[in-house]
């Protein structure tokens, strides 16, 4: 293997292998505790039982999982877009920042669960209140990070663009937004981790029919502990997958952070050749 090939293999081992190992460790620890302390199966199942409760009921669970994913994704997209927009507006208009910031902080001080009841009154038992709850949680870290990022763009760089005669619009898209990518993605990643929690809270408080959260409640009232744990694992898996997807987008969108040479795109190579 070549030196960069080896380095790449090392990176993959560290970025994929180690997290998988830690996941396995959690399962092993779980098994050891349940067996070692003779925990009754109605208090805590063994990992195998929890996993089986999911796989054996998959056809029943899958539509519910899809519902939760939908709420998470829609809510995240709405929240991220709103958060970005608010962040930009507030960073650009100091007066608005002073006016709106306290309201935003206030919005986050409201216990989410207390928000659900009025939302159901307004929006009914549809997907809408869940999307609103997820967006409510997601927008805040995005807004805070975008404001922070935009207000810390190098003044000299902005002056350079000005000396060149760049318009504010160009400067914004070509300088300020890329310069804000690190805090922006930090906000998105924080939002991504909480998004599923928001969706589940929404399902608990604002579901009339079937949902993953109600499925778990149902299992709980039937003393089906394995299914309770199994459902929790599924919810966690949705959360982790969504977080990893956002991380994936970040890695793809910010190649300069880990590469020394730019990627070659097939459709750009043509242009390069023509230009020579």
């Amino acid at each position, binding site marked *: 293997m070549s030196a960069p090939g080896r380095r790449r293999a090392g990176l993959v081992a560290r970025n994929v292998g180690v997290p998988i190992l830690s996941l396995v460790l959690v399962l092993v620890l779980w098994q050891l505790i349940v067996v070692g302390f003779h925990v009754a199966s109605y208090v805590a199942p063994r990992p195998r039982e929890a996993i089986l409760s999911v796989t054996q009921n998959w056809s029943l669970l899958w539509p519910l999982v899809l519902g939760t994913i939908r709420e998470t994704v829609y809510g995240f997209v709405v929240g991220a877009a709103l958060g970005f927009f608010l962040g930009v507006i507030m960073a650009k208009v100091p007066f608005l920042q002073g006016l709106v910031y306290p309201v935003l902080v206030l919005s986050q001080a409201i216990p989410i669960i207390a928000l659900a009841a009025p939302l159901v009154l307004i929006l009914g038992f549809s997907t809408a209140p869940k999307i609103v709850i997820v967006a409510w949680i997601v927008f805040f870290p995005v807004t805070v990070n975008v404001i922070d990022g935009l207000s810390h763009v190098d003044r000299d760089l902005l002056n*350079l663009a000005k000396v060149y005669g760049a318009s504010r619009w160009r400067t914004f898209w070509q300088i300020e937004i*890329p310069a804000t990518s690190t805090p922006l993605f930090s906000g998105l990643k924080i939002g991504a981790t909480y998004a599923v929690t928001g969706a589940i809270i929404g399902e608990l408080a604002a579901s009339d029919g079937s949902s993953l959260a109600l499925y778990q409640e149902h299992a709980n009232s039937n003393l089906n502990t394995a299914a309770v744990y199994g459902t929790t694992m599924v919810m966690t898996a949705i959360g982790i997958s969504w977080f990893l997807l956002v991380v994936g987008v970040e890695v793809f969108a910010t190649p*300069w952070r880990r590469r020394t040479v*730019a990627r070659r795109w097939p459709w750009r190579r043509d242009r*390069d050749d023509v230009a020579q």
Partner: protein
Amino acid sequence: MTEPLLSLREVAKTFGETVALAPTTLTIDEGSFVAIVGPSGCGKSTLFNVIAGLLTPDGGDVLLRDRPVTGSTGHVGYMLQKDLLVPWRTVEDNITMAKRLTGRVTAEDRAEARRMARAYGLGEFLRHYPSALSGGMRQRVAFMRTLMTHQSLLLLDEPFGALDAQTRLEMQQWLLQVWRDAQRTVLFITHDVDESIFLADRVVVMSPRPGRVVADFTSPLARPRTLDMLTEGHFIELKGRVMHLLHGGAT
């Protein structure tokens, strides 16, 4: 080569109580290389920012080819000690940055950027991100970006100030070579007296409190400049006079 490209007429700037720049009149000929030396606080950077249009002077006019450009931007190339390369663009895309900010980067622009990078020793790094480059290489890219503004007047504010002595000497020679090829007018701020005499046709000396021009020397050195000129009698003599102005009787 004797047409005035830039004229400053009684340009002055005050910040609060501090007179950053006393009324200053200065003419820069087309195609010349003029260095401005002075200690910090002598108004060099204020002068630059007024010429670039980042600051509006309290009084006076900035004329570029007899056209008033006081307080407006978009008429000079500008480079600082900080290279200000954007980390998210490749070397090639950093070189074409000015066009990206003001118009459209055409295939010709890209070809020109590549040609320049190849001619001046960065051909192998076109697709690299700036983080992969050394300080000297980054300043070369920054200078090429400045050239690609296609402005006649280039303002360079201590561009090599952060480099080590060896790299700085290499960069000075490199700059002279590129300047000769590119046929631009350069206004170069430095606090390094050797650098100012070695590079420039004219050495303008400024002094603080209030910031003002106190002397304007013509460099006695012929072109092309070579390193052994740094120890020539003419060079040492002018250096002595400039040093005397900068440090008063202390030297």
